[in-house]
């Protein structure tokens, strides 16, 4: 039996499944290894693969004409070889790069390049196969493009589910097995490709890939991640380990583990030992080992105990469980009802079981993202408490591209609204130097609007600090003298300082950890003085849902000032994460430039003019598609409370809907003239989406479970449906009478999508969601106008 069209369709579908699942598994793989998931970089690997395939296909034209099936067979075998090989090369030859050291050690920078290159090879092969099938059966482009995108969509959904049971690196290897197995089965039924040597090679690869599924290939986190450091303790023992789409949850037990942020320097006594909880190798909380035998006095001698000193809160909401230690703090301070939000279902169960036997307090652990919980909540609390947020100084800004929707102006407004009359919102942070986190928190709090629409006033804010932690309290109401007296006594007893006093300028007695100029700035912020940040070289203004990058403090226009003050060997104050995106963009730029050069050099078209038109057209749709995809991922990270869910849902749904759009494109717009309408339609849909995005987000946040996914799909589908049309439209319009035009367009589209992918992250971090979507809309409108103008000029 020869491979007929139907077989090509099956191959195409399965290849598309593996392309997307490879991306998702690598995103999770890097999230564990590094400080960031590198989603845009991984998407770039795949897109670069598609670009390269555009260059390879014309070179294979002779072989394809002679024997397409054998070419497919060989590339399938190569895929089955390179997928496991890429993991092995990274693990045993190149070694994982360390984003912590990328700017410090040139070897790490080179490794970063090699790792990108290494993982791009399997994507190149997969994309070449997809491209081969698409170009060999160009007359069925609609059906094939549809199968390509639907396969990708299904792959995304299916493999995210598998992340509950299988490590991401195993999913990646499973894809290798699927491909060689597919190749083997096809070879058995394909007389032409049934050569003994090929068959033997294929069989060996099937066996090898199958055995890789059972060999332990560990993904090691950076030696500087907290988990690695804790594992170095002599008695460290992993007592719990479970993969999940939210990241791998691990619990480490060691007699050396203790946790007491904000502790008074004059505290004398025991600090109980415990177990540290990690998600994706990063600290996610602390669990006291023997709570019954432990003395919890230390929890009262911390800056974090301040809200309990001011009054006796009855109903408390703890945002982020932090492993349970903050529940202990609430219990020891006699709180009656304690609500705790924890978005990770595994962690949520662990915390619940810790307090199962506690009957004297009402403790409810709610498996919900804290931001979603406050958005949906109708009840009011005496105290809303957030534990110490990440130690910013420690992470060196590696979280700067991470969306943090709990620390935005909109989130703080909702938290304030959920407070009871005279209730407190308490949040703590580490003191970084120069001070950034606290200033950003303060500015965000100051943006909250009261019921009468006026801004928060100074007499509602109180902050105390020890040598390295600041606790801020915002009161829904004005602090009274009794509260001030309690705070002053508490501070003096524990040798804390009142950093923000509701009624007067602070006086530092014990902890001179913030310089006088910064103290002046704090004073200006709390007393609403104008031009308060003009002189400050970091961005400490509030983050918003549009730009939820709380940990990014860089102002791009002030880059020279940072560099003037720092030598390259000592990037003391630079936010590494931000510059890592630039480095990724630079890598993408180099790869894209090579690809574009090769495309121009090696693919000859019948007309030079057409080359230019294809370049303009396919680069624009490549870039704008990525702007939309990455922007939606950012927005839906808030809605689904998980980056992996948002990434897989958006990629999958956009591909499915744009697949359907491309399939139906020539039926909906049969004539070339009518097809032009698709561009203003896309512009209109995007701008409508932009205008109504706040409403859409609040509507979707309120929904639960599958309904949330279903309704989200209803909003995304029309967008994807229309943005799927310009690609087949362009192929029909510009490529049909030149056999080299499709691969050329394919290469241009791929290489600009690579740039668009990382470029959109830069745009999102610097300019926000609204700007990026608006830019995409403008690009589509420009294209419509460009084609109209070109056709008009040709006619006239």
């Amino acid at each position, binding site marked *: 039996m020869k491979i007929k069209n139907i077989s090509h369709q099956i191959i195409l579908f399965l290849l598309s499944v593996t392309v997307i699942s490879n991306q998702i598994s690598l995103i999770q793989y890097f999230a564990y290894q590094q400080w960031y998931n590198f989603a845009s970089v991984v998407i770039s690997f795949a897109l670069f693969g598609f670009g390269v395939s555009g260059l390879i296909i014309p070179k294979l034209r002779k072989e394809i004409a002679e024997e397409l099936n054998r070419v497919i067979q060989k590339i399938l075998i190569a895929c089955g070889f390179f997928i496991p090989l890429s993991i092995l090369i990274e693990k045993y030859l190149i070694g994982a790069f360390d984003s912590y050291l990328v700017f410090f050690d040139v070897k790490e920078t080179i490794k970063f390049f090699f790792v990108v290159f290494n993982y791009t090879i399997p994507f190149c092969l997969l994309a070449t196969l997809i491209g081969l099938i698409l170009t060999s059966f160009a007359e069925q482009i609609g059906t094939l493009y549809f199968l390509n995108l639907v396969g990708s969509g299904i792959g995304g959904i299916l493999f995210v589910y598998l992340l509950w049971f299988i490590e991401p690196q195993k999913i990646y290897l499973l894809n290798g097995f699927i491909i060689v197995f597919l190749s083997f089965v096809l070879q058995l039924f394909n007389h032409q490709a049934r050569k003994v040597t090929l068959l033997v090679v294929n069989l060996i690869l099937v066996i090898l890939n199958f055995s890789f599924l059972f060999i332990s290939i560990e993904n090691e986190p950076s030696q500087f991640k907290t988990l690695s450091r804790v594992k170095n303790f002599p008695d460290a023992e992993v007592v719990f380990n479970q993969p999940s789409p939210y990241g791998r949850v691990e619990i480490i037990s060691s007699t050396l583990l203790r946790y007491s942020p904000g502790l008074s*320097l004059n505290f004398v006594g025991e600090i109980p030992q415990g177990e540290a909880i990690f998600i994706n190798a990063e600290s996610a909380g602390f669990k006291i080992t023997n709570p019954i035998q432990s003395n919890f006095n230390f929890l009262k001698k911390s800056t974090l105990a301040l809200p309990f000193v001011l009054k006796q809160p009855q109903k408390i909401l703890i945002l982020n469980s932090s492993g349970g230690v903050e529940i202990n703090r609430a219990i020891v301070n006699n709180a009656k009802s304690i609500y705790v939000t924890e978005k990770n279902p595994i962690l949520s169960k662990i915390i619940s079981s810790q307090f199962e036997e506690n009957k004297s307090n009402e403790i409810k652990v709610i498996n919900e993202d804290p931001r979603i919980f406050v958005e949906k909540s109708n009840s009011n609390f005496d105290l809303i408490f957030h534990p110490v947020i990440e130690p910013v100084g420690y992470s060196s800004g590696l979280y700067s591209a991470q969306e943090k929707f709990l620390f935005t102006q909109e989130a703080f407004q909702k938290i304030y609204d959920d407070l009871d009359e005279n209730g407190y919102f308490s949040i703590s942070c580490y003191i970084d*130097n120069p001070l950034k986190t606290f200033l950003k928190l303060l500015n965000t709090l100051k943006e909250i609007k009261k019921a009468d629409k006026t801004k928060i006033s100074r007499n509602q804010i109180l902050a105390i600090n020890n040598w390295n932690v600041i606790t801020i309290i915002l009161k829904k109401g004005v602090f009274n003298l009794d509260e001030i007296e309690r705070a002053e006594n508490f501070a003096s007893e524990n040798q804390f300082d009142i950093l923000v006093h509701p009624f007067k300028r602070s006086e530092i007695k014990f902890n001179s950890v913030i310089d006088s100029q910064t103290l002046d700035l704090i004073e200006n912020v709390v007393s609403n003085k104008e031009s308060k940040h003009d002189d400050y070289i970091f961005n400490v203004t509030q983050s918003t849902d549009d730009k939820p990058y709380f940990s990014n403090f860089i102002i791009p226009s002030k880059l020279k000032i940072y560099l003037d003050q720092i030598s390259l060997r000592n990037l003391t104050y630079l936010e590494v994460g931000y510059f890592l995106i630039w480095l990724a963009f630079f890598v993408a730029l180099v790869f894209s430039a090579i690809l574009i050069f090769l495309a121009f050099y090696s693919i000859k078209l019948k007309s030079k003019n057409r080359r230019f038109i294809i370049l303009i057209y396919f680069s624009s749709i490549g870039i704008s598609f990525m702007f939309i995809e990455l922007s939606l991922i950012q927005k839906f990270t808030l809605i689904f409370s998980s980056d992996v869910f948002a990434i897989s849902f958006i990629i999958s749904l956009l591909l499915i809907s744009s697949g359907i759009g491309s399939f139906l494109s020539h039926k909906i717009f049969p004539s070339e003239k009518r097809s032009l309408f698709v561009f203003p339609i896309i512009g209109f849909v995007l701008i409508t989406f932009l205008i109504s995005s706040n409403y859409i987000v609040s509507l979707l946040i309120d929904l639960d479970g599958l309904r949330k996914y279903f309704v989200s799909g209803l909003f995304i589908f029309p967008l994807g449906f229309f943005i799927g049309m310009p690609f087949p439209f362009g192929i029909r319009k510009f490529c049909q009478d030149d056999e080299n035009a499709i691969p050329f367009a394919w290469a241009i589209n791929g290489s600009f999508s690579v740039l668009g992918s990382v470029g959109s992250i830069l745009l999102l971090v610097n300019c926000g969601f609204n700007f990026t979507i608006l830019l995409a809309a403008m690009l589509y409108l420009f294209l419509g106008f460009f084609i109209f103008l070109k056709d008009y000029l040709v006619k006239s």
Partner: protein
Amino acid sequence: MKSKLILIIIFLFLGFDDPYKSARERMVNLQIKARGVKNEFVLKAMSKVPRHLFVPKSHIDEAYDDGPVPIGYGQTISQPFIVAYMTEVIDPEKCKKVLEIGTGSGYQAAILAEIVDSVFTIEIITELYKEAKERLEKLGYKNIKVKNADGYYGWREHALFDAIVVTAAAEFVPPPLIEQLKDGGKMVIPVGSPFYTQNLVLIEKKEGKIYSKNLIPVRFVPFIRGK
């Protein structure tokens, strides 16, 4: 390779038994003195201790560079300036007994040992402890005692200490360390990550009260007034 070998032989023949001496002098002049470290005891110690013997062989070329060097296990040997500055702020010439939490490679302990009577240093990672102990013994430091233990408890048998140097960033200061610090004693703690130390905090015990102070080693001005 050959020419390097010849150079080393010439150096040895001429009596230059330490080919890294000039690198060390440059380090002291350009990285330490130039940034304001003035204490003569510290400068002398920094000029004397062979830093290249404290870094892994694979990083020996970077030993005298202006930056930290990884020593494995997620640990580093601090940037030379940070070591000098941490030593200077505890007024080592006035100290008899110093406790160090986090031996690492042993370099900071060696610098302290050049100035004070006795250094007590604790390392939790067994491999690092063994390497550092052997290295310090080989170099003949008789006034350094190394222990493989949890730094949280300090070293009660030898308390009280004139100064405590904590070499790894800490979320909180263990109460036993405060107890083991003499009245009038100083404790210094780095704040930040191993490769990106942002500042140092000095903790002082005066008449039973504890005071903390931020020391910004590399003055970074976050304000741009007048621009």
